[in-house]
């Protein structure tokens, strides 16, 4: 690793829907806090996944403390705009700026980059002001992340004058510094997420200035057998030995053996996708593996287990 993942200051976590992006983001933030860093976890779409991951009350725009050194918030573009106007534009009487906020919210709906810049701007501000050692963002899914990361450029192309244009300068500097900012792409060892990951990494490298810090492969099934053990397993299933096994183990053994065969096949299909992923990604890009959790798929327990697995992968 050129820069240790958790030694950066701002991590955007993205991934195709359904791969467990929110859990990974929550776990990275938890791991960072456990390692002594003051950490902020932020969810960009207010789905409430982050609060679920920590089993905490719903998060809001104002960061709340989850545990020692760990804070969580949800992005809210209108609140972000108000804060921006108050802190950076010194616009007086924000309370009375309702119509402006409304007008800008309306513009944000249609104008490219406005909503994104309010999100990225707020997070960049937290980093710039050194409020936290690390900010982990449960960011947009793969389809929208490039738009989010290139918002400052989009804005500076559209807005030729005015205060907003001046703001995009420092934000771009912050995003393009690999010691500061990194993108983490979450995937599962399945065909579609793997292909989307390969495509996204290519796009991020060609269309943005943001460094891809790591690809995290979630829900990796365990390897069942070594090569020689698998041969033995196949022998046990074959007609020669199967009747002896049935007699020795009792009824139901066929189902147990069938389940193991399924596990072997699933694992093998996934290994194929993983090999394709590794071969298609730049060799220096680290791949981190998180095992499939059989017992709990969400909630604080799952978050803690994923954090532990990530910690082991990162050598903590």
């Amino acid at each position, binding site marked *: 690793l050129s820069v240790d993942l958790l030694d950066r200051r701002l991590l955007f976590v993205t991934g195709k829907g359904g791969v467990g992006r929110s859990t990974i983001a929550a776990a990275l933030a938890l791991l960072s806090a456990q390692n002594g860093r003051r950490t902020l976890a932020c969810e960009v779409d207010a789905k409430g996944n982050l609060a679920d991951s920590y089993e905490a009350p719903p998060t809001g725009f104002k960061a709340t403390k989850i545990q020692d050194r760990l804070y969580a918030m949800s992005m809210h573009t209108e609140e972000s705009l108000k804060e921006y106007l108050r802190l950076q534009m010194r616009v007086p009487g924000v309370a009375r700026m309702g119509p402006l906020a409304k007008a800008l919210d*309306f513009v944000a709906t*249609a104008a490219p980059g406005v909503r994104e810049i309010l999100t990225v701007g707020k997070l960049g501000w937290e980093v710039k002001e050194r409020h936290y050692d690390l900010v982990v963002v449960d960011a947009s899914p793969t389809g929208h992340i490039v738009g989010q990361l290139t918002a400052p450029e989009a804005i500076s192309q559209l807005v030729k004058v005015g205060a907003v244009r001046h703001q995009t300068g420092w934000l771009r500097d912050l995003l393009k510094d690999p010691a500061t900012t990194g993108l983490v792409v979450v995937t599962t060892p399945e*065909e579609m997420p793997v*292909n989307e990951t390969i495509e996204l990494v290519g796009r991020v490298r060609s269309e943005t200035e943001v460094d891809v810090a790591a690809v995290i492969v979630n829900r990796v099934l365990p390897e069942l057998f070594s090569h020689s053990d698998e041969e033995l397993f196949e022998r046990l299933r074959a007609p020669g*030995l199967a009747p*002896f096994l049935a*007699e020795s183990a009792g009824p139901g053994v066929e189902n147990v053996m069938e389940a193991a065969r399924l596990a072997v096949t699933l694992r093998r299909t996934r290994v194929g996708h993983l090999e394709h992923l590794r071969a298609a990604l730049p060799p220096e890009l680290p791949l981190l593996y998180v095992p499939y959790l059989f017992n709990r798929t969400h909630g604080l327990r799952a978050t803690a287990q994923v954090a532990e697995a990530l910690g082991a992968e990162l050598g903590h």
Partner: protein
Amino acid sequence: LSARAATGAAPTGAAPRSLEQLLAAKEIAVCCGSGGVGKTTTAAAAAAMAAASLGGKVLVLTVDPARRLADALGMESLGNREMRVPALSFKAAGVECRGELWAAMLDTKQSWDELVTRHAPDGVTAQRILGNPLYQNVAGRFVQSHEYIAMERLYEMHSSGRYDLIVVDTPPTRNALDFLEAPDRMADFFSSRLLRWLTVPTRSRVVNLASRPFYQAADRILGSQFLEDIAEFFLLFQSMHDGFVERARAVKRLLSDRRTTFVVVTTLEAAPLHEAELFIDALGGHGFHLGALVLNKMLPAYLLDGAAFQVAERFAGPRGAEVAAGLPAEAGVADQVARVLREVGESYLNFAVVAKREAEQRAELAAAPDVVATVPYFETDIYDLAGLLGLGRQLWTG
């Protein structure tokens, strides 16, 4: 009716309710669900089955540019234009296709351009809109444009009268309501006061508002030039107001029509299932027809077998060695056999936990529609039409 409920049997002469029966009766099926549940594949499999066994002209409209789907359909690529899946592909899959299967992918930008061309009052205005840099940036993301454009294209295809059935795969949405509400939002957007404010002739607005603090602030933050650019863009768009609003309402009517049904696709994992439940509620709230629930990637039932569970516990525990010792010598070295059986047992126990959790999730599923189709976990990926039809047969009868 009570007799039917008591026996669980279908009335005499009627087939049990299935996806097949549902699609035979409908002209549009909208597949929805959260990301990663297999929506695109389900939509394609259902459309392929409908074309093969119900006949007629069937279109699958997908938003997913997945290369694999095009491959599976035996096509070079999928574009905004509908293309027929070659009858030979069905033959190669060993299926006689009674009807025709057509496929198209949603290209948001191209669809927007066509929409503008259709609704602009004249060619000059259309060209000005299409050439506006703001429009070019915006076309891909304008007011949930992806959701709206999917519904809009569906409307266009349906009103062309070219198809007996259209199966549409919906874009992944941040929340389930996004595309159900997209037509309403589009109409609201064009009727909103703010849009009218922005499109008041520029001079009078500046004169009227220049003294107001919020215009001053907006000017300071964004620069008046940008505000003017936006105003001009909206002014151009305003010229399409009537056409757009009328169209958005027609799209909404089509979604509520009796000929349209919604198929909710989910796995039994907690998060997608939760989203599916929210979706089912939302459909009811909007007065849309919930036709079927597809439970995808179901683990095999043998994982719930009690006897197998006991065997697995034995394999995984200290008594596994006894089983190994009871086997003939050609099985192998006893230690190695015991190790393999332990792995086998532990693997079963692991997957059994998942299967039990999912069975419980299914039992807790509150408001399920009459048609619930279950599709087993496919061990390998689907690469061709034969694979797609294999999944389709499960859908049809499951």
